[in-house]
């Protein structure tokens, strides 16, 4: 296609949009709603998977000592731990601290503990292990190694918790792909029908174009460009609305329940560009599907 022709078609598409503002406005509005649902789903999916991954990456490990460890023993263990990548020492809980904490938790019923002679609670060291930095096999290696230390009684970490997170992640991914696919098809269906409305409102024009010798390509191209422009506009509006809702909703959540720890993220720029590109493609494909039967004159 010559550049001059392309310019002509783009000009026609823009003129058609401007001449049929109401129909296009309805089209862009419908597309924006369809894309908004899809984008919102992507945002929720992204946050769920991000949140689950983050939680799965950080695990807490407790090292229980046989006896209250002396300063040298504790220091040796700490030094050994810090050789492992991704390990952060959180705190040391002495036997007394453990008892105080238990008393606090029991509250009114703390008197039950008075009957105990010696403090049976072990001293412990809490550490955080980031599987992101140290890999999945390290927690087990760490546990095995620490348990060979004569001062250490037992090492516990939430292996099951990790497995559960992994399960949730896998489920979210499957549900995400299925739901995302269904939403994509629904969006395409809605958009195809919206574009049909636009085309139907101009079927006389198509007939005239064909009768004065326009090829199918000549008739189709401005409609395809219009579809792509509508897709771009609908996609942009959807992202803007989503961003506004995100900004307002997050501000509210922060204010009311201090939800900031959830660290809700917005769509990254690359993903937004991808969604926008997809909106354009859907508009284009929707036009192609819709045009089929109208140009057979």
């Amino acid at each position, binding site marked *: 296609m010559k550049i001059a022709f392309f310019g002509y078609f783009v000009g026609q598409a823009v003129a058609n949009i401007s001449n049929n503002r109401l129909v296009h406005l309805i089209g862009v509005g419908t597309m924006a709603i369809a894309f908004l649902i899809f984008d919102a789903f992507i945002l929720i999916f992204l946050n769920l998977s991000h949140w689950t991954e983050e939680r799965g990456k950080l695990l807490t490990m407790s090292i229980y000592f046989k006896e209250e460890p002396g300063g040298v023993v504790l220091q040796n263990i700490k030094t050994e731990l810090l050789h492992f990548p991704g390990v952060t020492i959180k705190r040391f809980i002495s036997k007394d601290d453990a008892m105080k904490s238990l008393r606090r938790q029991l509250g009114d019923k703390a008197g039950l503990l008075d009957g105990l002679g010696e403090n049976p609670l072990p001293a412990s060291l809490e550490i955080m292990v980031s599987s992101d930095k140290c890999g999945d096999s390290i927690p087990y290696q760490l546990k095995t190694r620490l348990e060979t230390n004569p001062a250490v009684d037992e090492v516990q970490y939430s292996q099951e918790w990790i497995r559960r997170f992994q399960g949730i992640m896998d489920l979210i991914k499957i549900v995400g792909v299925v739901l995302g696919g269904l939403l994509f098809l629904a969006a395409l269906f809605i958009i195809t029908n919206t574009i049909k409305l636009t085309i139907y409102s101009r079927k006389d024009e198509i007939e*005239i174009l064909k009768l*004065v*010798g326009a090829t*199918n390509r000549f008739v189709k191209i401005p409609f395809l460009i219009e579809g792509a422009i509508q897709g771009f506009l609908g996609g942009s509006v959807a992202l803007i609305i989503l961003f506004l809702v995100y900004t307002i909703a997050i501000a509210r959540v922060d204010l009311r329940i201090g939800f900031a720890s959830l660290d809700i993220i917005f769509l990254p720029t690359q993903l937004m560009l991808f969604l926008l590109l997809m909106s354009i493609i859907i508009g284009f494909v929707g036009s192609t599907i819709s045009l089929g039967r109208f140009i057979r004159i």
Partner: protein
Amino acid sequence: MIQLFHVYKAFGSRNPALIDVSLTVRKGEFAFITGPSGAGKTTLLKIISRAEKTSSGQALVNGRNLNRINERELAFLRRRIGVVFQDFKLLPRRNVFENVALALEIAGFPLSVVRKKVHQTLRYLGLANKEDCYPPQLSGGEQQRVAVARAIINNPLILLADEPTGNLDPDLTMEIMALLREIHIRGTTVVVATHSQELLRDTRRRIVTLNKGRII
């Protein structure tokens, strides 16, 4: 230029619109197709412009068999056939210039050529001062002249006019008919479908009469 051989055309289960129509219109001829409403005049013109396909029989235009023509060839053939309708069929959201330029733009002429030819044609048809007007702003006669301008701007081999004066008063009718005669003198084959006996009075042109889908 136009040859129809035993053409039948039926729409669904209704009575056929054309029955065994055979007709030859020679190059440079001016012919009227006449008959009462529902006789099949419009269908006949639609067959010639391939807006409709024949149910059976053959239709040839400029040597091309319309039953065996692909989409692209048909588009190119239509650029050599000008069509004028009773209801003008102008694009209401495009101004006079743009409506007339359409036929040239479709044929891929550069913008400079389009401008020159449109100006020339509009001047020839007395519409030079109406270039920027939109069809709804024009009178019936002016709209029909715009439609004629669009039909002849490509120097077509054939001009098909379906009741071109049906919506016009007697003065404007004479004006449009004079225009069609001029176009014919310039070498275009002209076929006019009309039910108006006024137009046919005193004419020495060929008259083809249709009744209930048959040539009589």
